[in-house]
């Protein structure tokens, strides 16, 4: 089964375990936050002891890291707390060390944690998707109202990763002290959060303190929201985030999902009707012609451009002259 609903969970309440999976250094300890029973995909708080070292290599899974405390050394580069990495499956990372030790959040998205020693990328790796950034210093806060209907003022975000196909996102967010938002929310996507610092409150789950975590499957009610003294957290959604707000604390995930479908019907009736009438023909989703269309390929004849790329022959290039109309 997919990841279960883990909410709330506080990693401070449990002790670290030694990582024994092959490939990783032996000075790695972890706390499991959530795991997908089918794929082994998981999120862990990880402690790297001082002197930790792992060889260069890639994972079979796509993975993400957020440095929570301490520093990492990657070759001759040092990265500090707030540094974020998005690493595609098969992308070979340099050797990673931590001279003084570090706490990091590790998220394996498509499979169990793995590290295959390698200095070259796997030939299937989407290497162009790799990126890393000092999210604390090199990204500015923007208002959290990136989707509509929106969260209340007082939530700020920094977007760390965005998947243009699924609209999955990784971001950090904060709530100002005395933040509150009086509605109940749910989404079509799963939502995950790890509190880097501070406490926030939700009407269903109570306080989530520093080290607090949730993995919440789609359509589960959460909110009203408040944070008395403010908080900063890492958040993720596994597909498009849409805020369905309401004020019925007793609605079930099934009722919430039905309401979401009703909203699609009300908003996009033609699309809804098509999907319902074609629902049995596409077990893996309808065809996306962009993924199946025939491409020119390297052998295509006369594949050189004919113009300099600035030409619009339909535009009038002749001189304007005045003439009288009848």
């Amino acid at each position, binding site marked *: 089964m997919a990841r279960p609903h883990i909410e709330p969970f506080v990693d401070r309440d449990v002790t670290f375990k030694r990582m024994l999976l092959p490939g990783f250094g032996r000075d790695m300890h972890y706390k499991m936050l959530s795991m997908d029973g089918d794929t082994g995909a998981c999120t862990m708080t990880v402690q790297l002891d001082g002197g930790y070292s792992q060889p260069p290599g890639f994972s079979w899974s796509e993975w993400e890291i957020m440095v929570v405390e301490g520093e990492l050394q990657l070759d001759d580069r040092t990265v500090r707390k707030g540094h974020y990495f998005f690493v595609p499956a098969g992308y070979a990372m340099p050797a990673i060390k931590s001279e003084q030790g570090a706490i990091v959040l590790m998220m394996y998205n498509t499979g169990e944690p793995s590290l295959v020693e390698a200095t070259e990328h796997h030939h299937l*790796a989407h290497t162009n998707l790799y990126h890393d950034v000092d999210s604390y210093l090199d990204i500015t806060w923007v208002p959290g109202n990136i989707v509509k209907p929106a969260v209340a003022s007082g939530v700020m975000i920094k977007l760390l990763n965005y998947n243009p196909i699924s609209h999955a996102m990784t971001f950090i967010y904060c709530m100002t002290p005395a933040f509150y938002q009086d509605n109940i929310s749910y989404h079509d996507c799963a939502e995950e959060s790890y509190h880097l610092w501070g406490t926030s409150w939700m009407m269903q789950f109570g306080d989530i303190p520093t080290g607090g975590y949730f993995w919440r499957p789609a359509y589960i*009610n959460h909110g009203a929201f408040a944070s008395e003294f403010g908080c900063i957290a890492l958040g993720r959604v*596994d597909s498009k985030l849409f805020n369905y707000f309401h004020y019925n*604390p007793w609605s079930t995930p099934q009722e919430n999902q039905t309401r979401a479908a009703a909203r699609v019907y009300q908003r996009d009736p033609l699309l809804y009707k098509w999907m319902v009438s074609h629902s049995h023909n596409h077990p893996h989703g309808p065809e996306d012609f962009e993924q199946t269309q025939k491409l020119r390929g390297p052998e295509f004849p006369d594949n050189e451009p004919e113009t300099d790329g600035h030409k619009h022959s339909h535009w009038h290039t002749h001189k304007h002259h005045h003439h009288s109309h009848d």
Partner: protein
Amino acid sequence: MTFKNLFIDHERSKEEEEWIREELAEQEQRFAKIDRQMSDLAPARAKWYEEFFDRISLRGFNADGDQKVKIKREDLPVKPEGREDRVVWKYGVDGE
């Protein structure tokens, strides 16, 4: 769940299979504990629901961003007959 991103097919070792099995067993315990704790929170939550209804009727419901709509007392929902207050749903719409 899926991030719809690339996964490169590979063989899992016995060690890895065993590790996943153990982690899943512990996750079951973690889930059960949370489920109990959230049941125990029900009395506090009942009060929070009432305070929420007071705030949205007197001060407003956040309909979109900071836009607030006051909900009339007679338009507040009632708990459906026989339904228990429940906030943890193991696999969401996919049931238990």
